[in-house]
């Protein structure tokens, strides 16, 4: 567990003194705010163009990095003019991947409060207006801040409590964090997911009706797969030999054959269709040609 130090400027490297670093950060922040102010002042007729250009630039990076040749192109002994420059550009784009990854990871992480703010709005309204079940929303807020605060406290020693008390407090926070995470978060998450099993049981008995030959084929295949993947399937046909022609009649062999030949062919056919559709859709999004409620919204 690393100890967090929230007196950040003391970590400034030898390259900058604390004050100069603070000045740089504040200066960059001012430039950033000016940039945002500029965006806010953009006339409506230019907004769509800005969005289109940024979307295109984002897609251009990965497209060019893939499509451009990474080596100069030769015809015999002669290099095509300009191909070295193109290759240098492509290699530069490849070399920039780690930095792009870093920036994408960090900028993407700043979206962490998006979903949370929506939840705060909904549950805050419920608590303020004391709608039926408002105590559930209160429980939401309490547990939200509890695990967050406890998580930070377990990593940070509160020096003002004194060394012994701080260590005990930190250990206590760690224990409470473990109870909240392992006892509550994990079990609630796992149990929510496991509810589907019950609905499958109910549906198997009350809803899965084999009303056609195609449905019979589907259910028959499902039955063979279900039995063949588990130990009981092998047990059912254990009386068949392990080698020879009749070995292929063993349930696990039939299951395996179904999976790697017919099922594989079907999945590939579906995948080809999906792949072409995805390519077309991506092209439309990249070139801002897509229409729909999100893309057609007034900017």
């Amino acid at each position, binding site marked *: 567990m*690393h100890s967090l130090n929230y007196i950040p400027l003391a970590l400034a490297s030898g390259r900058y003194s604390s004050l100069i670093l603070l000045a740089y950060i504040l200066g960059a922040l001012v430039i950033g705010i000016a940039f945002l102010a500029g965006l806010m002042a953009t006339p409506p007729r230019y907004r769509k163009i800005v969005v289109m250009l940024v979307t295109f630039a984002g897609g251009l990076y*990965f497209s060019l990095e893939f499509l451009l040749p990474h080596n100069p192109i030769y015809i015999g002994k002669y290099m095509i003019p300009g191909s070295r420059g193109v290759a240098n550009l492509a290699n530069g784009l*490849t*070399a920039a*991947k*780690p*930095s*792009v*990854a*870093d920036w*994408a*990871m960090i*900028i*993407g*992480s700043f979206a962490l409060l998006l979903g949370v703010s929506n939840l705060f709005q909904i549950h805050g309204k419920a608590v303020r207006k004391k709608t039926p079940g408002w105590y559930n929303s209160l429980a939401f807020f309490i547990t939200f801040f509890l695990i967050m605060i406890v998580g930070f406290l377990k990593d940070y020693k509160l020096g003002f409590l004194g060394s012994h008390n701080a260590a005990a407090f930190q250990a206590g926070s760690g224990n409470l964090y473990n109870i909240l*995470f*392992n006892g509550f*978060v*994990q079990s609630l*998450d*796992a149990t*929510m*997911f*496991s509810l589907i*099993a*019950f609905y*499958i*049981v*109910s549906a*198997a*008995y*009350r*809803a*899965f*009706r*084999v*009303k*056609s030959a195609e*449905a*019979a084929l*589907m*259910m028959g295949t499902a*039955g063979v797969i*279900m*039995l063949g*993947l*588990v*130990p*009981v*399937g*092998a047990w059912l046909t254990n009386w068949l030999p392990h080698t020879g022609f009749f070995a292929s009649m063993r349930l*696990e062999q039939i299951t*395996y054959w179904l*999976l*790697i030949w017919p*099922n*594989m062919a079907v*999945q*590939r056919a579906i*995948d080809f269709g999906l792949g072409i559709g995805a390519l077309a859709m991506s092209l439309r999004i990249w070139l801002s040609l897509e229409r729909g409620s999100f893309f057609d919204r007034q900017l």
Partner: protein
Amino acid sequence: MNLLFKLQSIDRRILYVLIAVVLAVPLLKRPSKHPDNVFPEVRNAYNVIDSVPKGKIVLLSCSWGAGTKAENEPQLDALMRHMFQKHIKFVVFSWDAAGSEITYQSAKRIQDDMHAKYGVDWAHLGYKTGATNAIISGMGENFQKVMGQDRFGVKLSKLPAVSFVKNYKQIGAVVDITSVSLMGYWISYLTTPKNIPLIYCPTAVMSAGAYQYLDSGQLRGMLNGVMGAVQYETLIGRGHARTDAAATSWALSAAHIFIILLIVLGNLGYLAAKRAGIHTGGPRVG
């Protein structure tokens, strides 16, 4: 016939109790017998890990959380034990927020059981999020820069398990233990372009859609849910150990027989009702 039709209106809560009873028996008995048959894709996965050369590491990419822990944790368990046995260095990282903590706890338990050492034999690189394609392609070019530090904030250069990894050339294999399928990103941005073997460990729900990748060689092996993990345990010499995976496999056997019986009974009841001229509803399947 009358009885079959009457059973159609059985309360669903009775079915819920029945499934719990059916599954409780093998879970309480905890049979240690593992299946004798091992599917070829599991054996191939084993061979890939077994033949990772010295001087290379294995990336265990985990995109699962508590919701699919019952399926993905046995896979992680079996693979980690194999790599500890063979002294293959590996790193674990998670694309799921809760999964970061869960995978670390699971891995630490296995580390303690196998008497391995954190930082020397393996490392946990924490939670990753953002543009997945950028991160995966970036780590292939400059692993230290993109991954940066482990989940405790220790720089990778200070961890013997991973300090030597510069780029894709030091990656011996990638294992994708997943409930959301990042396989497409691994295939496109790292494993196929750089010819690194990829082992896929999905939940069973996603496994049927992976066989075409096994056929094309883009996946070198697969562990199909908890059954794949059980078969892998057989290969690493735990074929008689009382593991959760083994108990689960027998519970699954009971569950599948129960489900098939329910489907058959339900349809027999439906036929009985149809013959009696009574409409029982239920959506059409097919």
